[in-house]
C-alpha cells in the first residue's frame, strides 16, 4: 500500500511531495511564521536552518499538524501533501501523522520497554501479522536508529532508562518503524556523539532512497553533508530556499550569508 506513492511517473517527475504556500502561524499574539512558501520534494533531504527561536520547529510541526495539540496555536495558509490540502476538514490528522512521521526536538520515549516503544506504531497500524514479524520490524528499526547493538540484550528494559543520546536514537527508531513517507526530524543529532551522528546521517541517506526527509539542524556541516535542499529561516520568515550547494557557496541574501559564516545566530 505504501508502494503506490512510488509509481514510476512520480519518480520521473520528481514532483514536490509537500507544497506549502502562504503559511502563517500565530501562538496567541506571537506571530511565529510569516507567509512561508516551501516546496519539499520527494526522495530528497531538505534541511531547515536558522537561529534559535526563528520558527523551524513550528513550521515542521505544521507539516504533520502537531500544532493541533497546542490550544493557542493558529495555522493559516495551504499545505499540500501529494496535492491534497492537509488542513482540509476532511483530512484525518491521525491518518496524516501515520504518513508523516516525526522525531521531536526533545527525546520523548514512552515509559514502556524499549521493545514496546519501537513496536508502538506498528502495533497501532497493524503492520505485523505475527510476533515474529513484529520482532523483525523492531530489530530493523533499532538497527536503522543505530542503537541495536547497545540495546539488543535489554529490549525489555524501560526506554526511559537509556541515556539522552540513546533515547534520541530510540525515538528515531520508533519513528522509522512505522515506515512513514515523510520523516520530519527536529535536531535529531543534538545529543549524539560523532559516531552516532554519522550513523544517523547514514540512515537519513538511506531513507532518501524511498522517502522525503526534512531535518532541522544547527550544524551547518550536517546540513551541507546530508541535505540536497536547504531553507534558511530568520525571525519567522523564510529568507532563502534553494539547493544546498548554492546556499552554502553563493547565498543570495546577506542574512543567509552572515548566518552561515557565523555572524548572526
Amino acid at each position, binding site marked *: 500500500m505504501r508502494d503506490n506513492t512510488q509509481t514510476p511517473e512520480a519518480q520521473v517527475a520528481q514532483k514536490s511531495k509537500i507544497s506549502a504556500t502562504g503559511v502563517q502561524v500565530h501562538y496567541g499574539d506571537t506571530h511565529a511564521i510569516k507567509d512561508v512558501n516551501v516546496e519539499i520534494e520527494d526522495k530528497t533531504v531538505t534541511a531547515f536552518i536558522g537561529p534559535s527561536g526563528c520558527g523551524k520547529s513550528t513550521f515542521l510541526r505544521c507539516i*504533520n499538524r502537531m500544532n493541533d495539540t497546542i490550544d493557542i496555536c493558529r495555522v493559516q495558509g495551504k499545505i499540500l501533501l501529494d496535492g491534497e490540502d492537509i488542513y482540509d476538514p476532511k483530512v484525518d490528522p*491521525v491518518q496524516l501523522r*501515520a504518513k508523516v*512521521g516525526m522525531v521531536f526536538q526533545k527525546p520523548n520515549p514512552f*515509559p514502556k520497554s524499549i521493545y514496546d516503544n519501537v513496536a*508502538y*506504531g506498528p502495533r497501532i497500524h497493524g503492520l505485523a501479522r505475527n510476533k515474529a514479524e513484529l520482532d523483525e520490524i523492531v530489530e530493523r528499526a533499532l538497527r536503522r536508529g543505530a542503537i541495536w547493538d547497545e540495546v539488543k540484550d535489554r529490549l525489555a528494559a*524501560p526506554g526511559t532508562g537509556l541515556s539522552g543520546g540513546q533515547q534520541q536514537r530510540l525515538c528515531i527508531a520508533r519513528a522509522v518503524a512505522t515506515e512513514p513517507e515523510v520523516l520530519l526530524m527536529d535536531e535529531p543529532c543534538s545529543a549524539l556523539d560523532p559516531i552516532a551522528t554519522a550513523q544517523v546521517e547514514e540512515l537519513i541517506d538511506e531513507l532518501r532512497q524511498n522517502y522525503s526527509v526534512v531535518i532541522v539542524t544547527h550544524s551547518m556541516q550536517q546540513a551541507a553533508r546530508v541535505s540536497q535542499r536547504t531553507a534558511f529561516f530568520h525571525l519567522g520568515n523564510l529568507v532563502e530556499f534553494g539547493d544546498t550547494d548554492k546556499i552554502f557557496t553563493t547565498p543570495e541574501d546577506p542574512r543567509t550569508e552572515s548566518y552561515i559564516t557565523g555572524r548572526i545566530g
Partner: protein
Amino acid sequence: MTFNFLGNPLTLTLLVLSVAGVGYFLARRRAMARAGGDARVLHSLPNYYGMTAAMFAAVPALGVMVIWLLAQPMLIQNAVVPLLPAAATETAGTTSLVLSDVNRVAGGLTLAIEQGVLDAPAIAALRDDPSTLRATLAGVGVALGSEVEPYVLAAAETTRGLEARWGLVRGLVVVALGLAGLALAVRAADPAFRARNVVERGMMALLIAAASLAILTTLGIVLSMLFETINFFSLHPWQDFFLGGNWAPNFRGNSELSILPLLWGTLYISIIALMVAVPVGLFAAIYLSEYASPQLRSAAKPLLEILAGIPTIVYGLFALITVGPFLVSVFGAGGLLSAEGLRDGDALMSGATAVITAGLVMGIMLIPFVSSLSDDIINAVPQSLRDGSYGLGATPSETIRNVVLPAALPGIVGAILLAASRAIGETMIVVLGAGAIARISGNPFEAMTTITTRIVSQLTGDTDFASQETLVAFALGLTLFVLTLGLNVVALYIVRKYREQYE
C-alpha cells in the same frame, strides 16, 4: 497589687512580644553600630540580627508560659484536694464533681469582684454561711448546680489565692526569661556572629515542631484507643470479636460482639461505591483533561470540586428520600425488576435502606473525589509523551489507553485507594442509607451496617465507659484505623514505586 496584669496570659504574651520587638531593633542597631554603619561587613543582613534577638526573647518565654499554663491547674488541684472533707473525695467521680464546683465558684468570685458585686470583706463574711452566694453568682452569669457548701467556698478561695500568687510568679519568670533572651542576643550582635544561620536553625525548629505536633497527635489518638481496646479485650474474648459471626450487643450482658458482620457490611458497601465511582470518575477525568475544551474544563473542574465539598449528611438525605425509594420502586414489590415470579412472590427489595442504596450514593459522593485526583494526575503526564504518540499516528483514545493511562496508573491507583479509605470511614450515608442490621449476606438489596455506624450507636445515649458494649467501640475504631492506615500505606507504596520507575 500593681503587677496583677502579669497574671493575665494575654497581656503577658503582648508584653513578651513587645520585648521581642524592642530586641529586634536593639540588636539590629547594635550590629550596624559594631559594623561601623557598613552592612557589608556583617556576616548576615542586619534584619537577621534583629530576628535572632526577637526569637531569643520570645520563644523560651512563651514556651515556658504555655507549659506553665498547662501544668498550673493540675498542681493547684493537688493542693486543694487535701482541703476537702473525706466524704467529698470518696471516689474519683465525686472528687471531680466537687473540683469542678470549686473551679466554677472560683471563676464566679473573680468575675463578681471584677464587676464590683462582691469584694474581699464581703466574701470573708460569707465564709460560714455561703447560702446567698449561689444567687449572687447567678447574677454575674455563673450558674451553679447546687447550694455552695462552706468547704467549697474555702477551697475556691484557696484556689483563687494560689492562682493569683502563681500567676504573678509565672508572669515574673516569663518576663525575666524574655529579657534574659533579649540581653543575650543583643550582646551577641556582632559582625562575626552568624545570625543568618541561627535564624535558619530557628525556622527549622519551628517546622519540626509543627511536624512533630501532627505526628504526636496521631500517636495520642492511637494510644488512647489502644488502652480502651485493651480494656475491652480484658472483658470480652478476642476470639468472639475477630472470629465470631454475630453482632448482638445487649446492655443486660451476654453480648455477642463480632466485628465480622460489620466488616462485611463495610467492605460490601465500599466495593459497590468504588464500582460506581472509579469508572465514572476516571472517565470524567479523562474527558476533562484530554477532550474537553479549555473553557469547559475551567468551568467544570471547580464545579466538581464543589461537589466534593458537599457534607456527607446531605448525600445521606439524598439516599434516604430519593435513591432508596427509587430503588424500591424498581426492585421492590410491583417494581419493574422485582423478580417476584422467580422468588415465590418475594420482591428483591423490601425496604429503602439497603447495601445498594448506600453503595450507590457513596459512589456518587466519591465521583468528584476520584475524578479530581485523577485529573490532576493525568495532567501531570508530560505533553511530550502525548505528542510522541500522536506523532506516530495514534488516535486520542489510543494515546490515552497506551501512553497516558499507563504513565498515570500508579497515581490513579493511589487515588482509588484513597477513595476506598474514605468509603470505609464514611458514616452518615450508611446511617441513613444502609439500615442498622448487622449480617453477613451476599444480597445487596438487604439492609446491613458498617463499623463506623456501630461505633456511633455504641457510644451515643447513656453510656457506661466500663462495659464491654461501650468499649467495643474503641476496638472497632482501632481496627478501622489499622484498615485505612494499611490502605494508605499500600497506596503510598504503589505511587512511590512506580514514580521511581517512570521518571
